[in-house]
């Protein structure tokens, strides 16, 4: 015999529904009481969620907040990029090059040219995509709003850019025509920038350094490294009046001109300075001095017979025997040498590009050190040149320590008039350049060659705001200095945590109250319905079915309250969002419940209703039909 028919649950449900309908005023009161608890909680949750989400989305929508920027320029290998791109949370990563190499000239609408920064990009660049512009392909570019304004081009136009370089003292340039496929909105930044594929940026860099970019028909070859200096010492027969002095460096690229004593000049140059000369130190803090600066000051002081001697600080050469030298660099013609009371130097005056390459590695070697070495002395060699170990062809092998060690061979041409080796100043300038840039010495040709600069930075975007702090820490662990919008992100996380805690506190209070209301009401309902519940037992339902009755009622009341609460919430949220509409973007909501939260809210409410009904259900199982059907 079947004791439980599946139909009995539905019979009980129908009875419970009929009772709620019959006692509709009471039901309404209960539903209103519960709605009074649930609806404010929904609004509260919506507000909390809406405001936090709005704040987050404002950050999320601006990819700038997901960017991690390196604050220092340093070399990065291809391997490093491959590795970091695979880190979880990295949405986009592209290498960048030296900022100085990634500039192009753009002819502006008024005909003048202007330097624009060239920023490498690649497929998936969130900064472009999320600002609503496509990623440029081959021979295409995206401009910032300011760049578009200055160059007077719009999407679809072609932008002419000019890449220039100075080679062998001559200025050269090439042109390129690029299609503008997008212009960033002004909110994306006010800098004048051109976003182009990495390949184009690398070609520009190569060309600037003297290499060819064959597929673009940009000419070039392996470039000579250019010398750079820490400053120049200016020696004059007559002192400069203070006014002339300050005027002398205008538009020369020098930032300072200081009167120095002979001693100071001697220590900068490593040379004895005749007493009759007046000495000045010309330099630019934190920037190297190049050939063009020297030409500029030379033409500025024409007529005053200036002696302009560039210097490089703290440069060492290490001989093959491990001995350390502090070479003195001096390139002067015979007349200038005479003014310095020095014998002429075989390589003559200052010349950045020499016809005879071997002049660059010439040296005059000190003689008074013979006693220190000598074990490797050639019997037929000049006895004054025995200071260092010789190569087979008579060269002296030395090494310049720096970022990358550079070994090369010096050709001694005679004795040094000083106690240190005397070399062309251009050689020291190149060794100084080699401190920052990859320069190699090709033994077969006896030439120095400049290597490609390589990757010197990166553009990295995290996949989400929450990934930013983790990536930040990870890059820092690698010893990289990066900056990210950590504070803005953390502020929101703190706010979110606080608001969530507050919400739960209030929710706990509200849900406790709501549950209590339901417990009391359902208990009272069962008590009122004792006789009726007795009758349905008498008619053949078991205790369990009797207990089911208040549970069904509880669920129904909760469901009705939920529906009403959601309606109330919907209305209130609309009002709130409308009244804050001025502060919000079209898609933003001040009060918003995500769909994913609705299901848990419904489940939790129904679960609580069930729990509340359990007390009444327990009461219902203790009803004895024989006791309640008979009215005494």
């Amino acid at each position, binding site marked *: 015999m079947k004791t439980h028919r599946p139909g009995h649950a539905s019979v009980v449900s129908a009875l419970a529904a009929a009772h709620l309908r019959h006692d509709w005023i009471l039901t309404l009161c209960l539903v209103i009481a519960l709605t009074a608890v649930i609806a404010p909680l929904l609004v509260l949750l919506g507000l909390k969620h809406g405001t936090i989400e709005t704040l987050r989305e404002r950050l999320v929508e601006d990819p700038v907040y997901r960017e991690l920027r390196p604050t220092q320029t340093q070399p990065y290998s291809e391997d490093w990029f491959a590795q970091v791109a695979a880190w979880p949370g990295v949405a986009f990563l592209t290498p960048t090059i030296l900022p100085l190499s990634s500039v192009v000239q753009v002819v502006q609408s008024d005909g003048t040219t202007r330097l624009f920064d060239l920023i490498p990009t690649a497929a998936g660049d969130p900064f472009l995509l999320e600002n609503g512009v496509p990623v440029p392909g081959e021979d295409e570019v995206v401009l910032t709003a300011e760049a578009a304004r200055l160059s007077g081009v719009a999407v679809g136009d072609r932008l002419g850019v000019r890449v220039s370089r100075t080679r062998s003292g001559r200025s050269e340039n090439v042109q390129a025509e690029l299609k503008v496929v997008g212009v960033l909105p002004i909110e994306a930044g006010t800098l004048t920038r051109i976003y182009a594929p990495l390949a184009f940026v690398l070609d520009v860099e190569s060309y600037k350094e003297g290499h060819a970019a064959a597929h673009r028909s940009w000419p070039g070859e392996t470039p000579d490294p250019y010398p750079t200096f820490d400053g120049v010492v200016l020696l004059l027969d007559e002192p400069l009046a203070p006014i002339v002095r300050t005027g002398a460096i205008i538009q020369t690229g020098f930032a300072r001109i200081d009167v120095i004593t002979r001693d100071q000049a001697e220590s900068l140059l490593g040379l004895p300075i005749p007493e009759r000369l007046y000495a000045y130190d010309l330099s630019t803090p934190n920037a190297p001095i190049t050939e063009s600066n020297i030409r500029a000051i030379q033409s500025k002081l024409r007529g005053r017979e200036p002696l302009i001697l560039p210097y490089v600080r703290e440069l060492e050469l290490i001989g093959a025997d491990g001995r350390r030298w502090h070479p003195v660099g001096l390139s002067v013609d015979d007349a200038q040498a005479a003014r310095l009371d020095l014998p002429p130097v075989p390589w003559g005056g200052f010349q950045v590009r020499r016809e005879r390459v071997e002049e660059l590695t010439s040296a005059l070697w000190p003689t008074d050190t013979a006693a220190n070495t000598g074990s490797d002395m050639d019997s037929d060699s000049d006895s004054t040149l025995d200071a260092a170990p010789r190569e087979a062809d008579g060269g002296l092998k030395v090494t310049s320590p720096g970022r990358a060690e550079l070994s090369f061979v010096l050709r001694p041409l005679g004795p040094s008039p000083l106690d240190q080796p005397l070399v062309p100043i251009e050689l020291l300038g190149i060794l100084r350049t080699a401190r920052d840039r990859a320069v190699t010495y090709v033994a077969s040709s006896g030439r120095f060659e400049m290597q490609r600069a390589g990757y010197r930075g990166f553009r990295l975007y995290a996949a989400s705001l929450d990934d930013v702090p983790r990536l930040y820490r990870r890059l820092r662990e690698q010893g990289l200095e990066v900056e990210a919008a950590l504070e803005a992100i953390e502020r929101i996380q703190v706010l979110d945590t606080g608001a969530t805690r507050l919400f739960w506190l209030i929710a706990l209070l509200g849900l406790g109250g709501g549950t209590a209301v339901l417990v009391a009401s359902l208990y009272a309902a069962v008590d009122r319905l004792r006789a009726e519940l007795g009758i349905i037992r008498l008619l053949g339902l078991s205790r369990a079915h009797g207990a089911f009755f208040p549970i069904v009622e509880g669920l129904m009341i909760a469901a009705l309250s939920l529906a009403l609460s959601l309606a109330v919430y919907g209305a209130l949220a609309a009002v709130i969002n409308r009244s804050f509409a001025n502060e919000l973007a079209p898609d933003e909501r001040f009060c918003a419940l995500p769909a994913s939260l609705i299901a848990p809210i419904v489940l939790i409410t129904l679960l609580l209703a069930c729990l509340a009904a359990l007390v009444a259900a327990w009461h219902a199982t203790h009803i004895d039909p024989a006791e309640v059907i008979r*009215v005494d």
Partner: protein
Amino acid sequence: MGDGQTAMVRMESIVKRRGQADGGFELRVPELWVDAGEVVALIGPSGCGKSTLLDLIALILAPTSAGRFTLHLAGEIAGQDLAALWSRGDEGALAALRREALGYIPQTGGLLSFLSVRDNIRLPCRIKGVNLADRELEALAERLGVAECLDRKPQALSIGQRQRVAILRAIAHGPRLLLADEPTAALDKPRARAVLADMNALARQQHLALVIVTHDLDLLAGHIDRVYAFDLERLSEFETRSTCRPLDDGKRVSG
């Protein structure tokens, strides 16, 4: 029939105690049976335990002890051992028997206030899982004179109408045994007579056994097959014992 061996309900040596700490009431049923199609009356003054006996038969009150307590429905080979069901507390099986085989007419109708008359009448059918056609329901209602009340709530009915509806509800699902607890107590005599006559006619027609509790045998004159009465003994100041016994009914009924 008549010896009770194949009776529908058979009770032997049943005791039901209702006790308070300072005393109690004990109902003893040495032997009682109800045959299929029979009308059995339980008569006695109030407090004699006739309603208690009815609730025992209705399976909503557990006997304190039972020598034999069976329910044997037509078509079943072996009867249900009710004593055993009660002793192992098989609430589900007892509930199933109630909805399958029993119909109960409480003293005051016991209609569910939140259901219409029609739904009240249908309720046992729905619980039993049988279908009751509207036509059939309306025909029955017509017969008992409550056809016009079907779509009202019980509160809107007179007491007589309520009792008629209660009778309809008790038989609509096709029970084998109808139990009635002074169904006409609240009615005046002519109305009570009419209601009982209708109930009896329906029971006879559907070949139902009927156990009816009453204090007024006159109302049932001509309908009763057998009568049980109760002997009350005061055992002490607080103890009362009531023993159920068959009444030599032949003369009384015919008289």
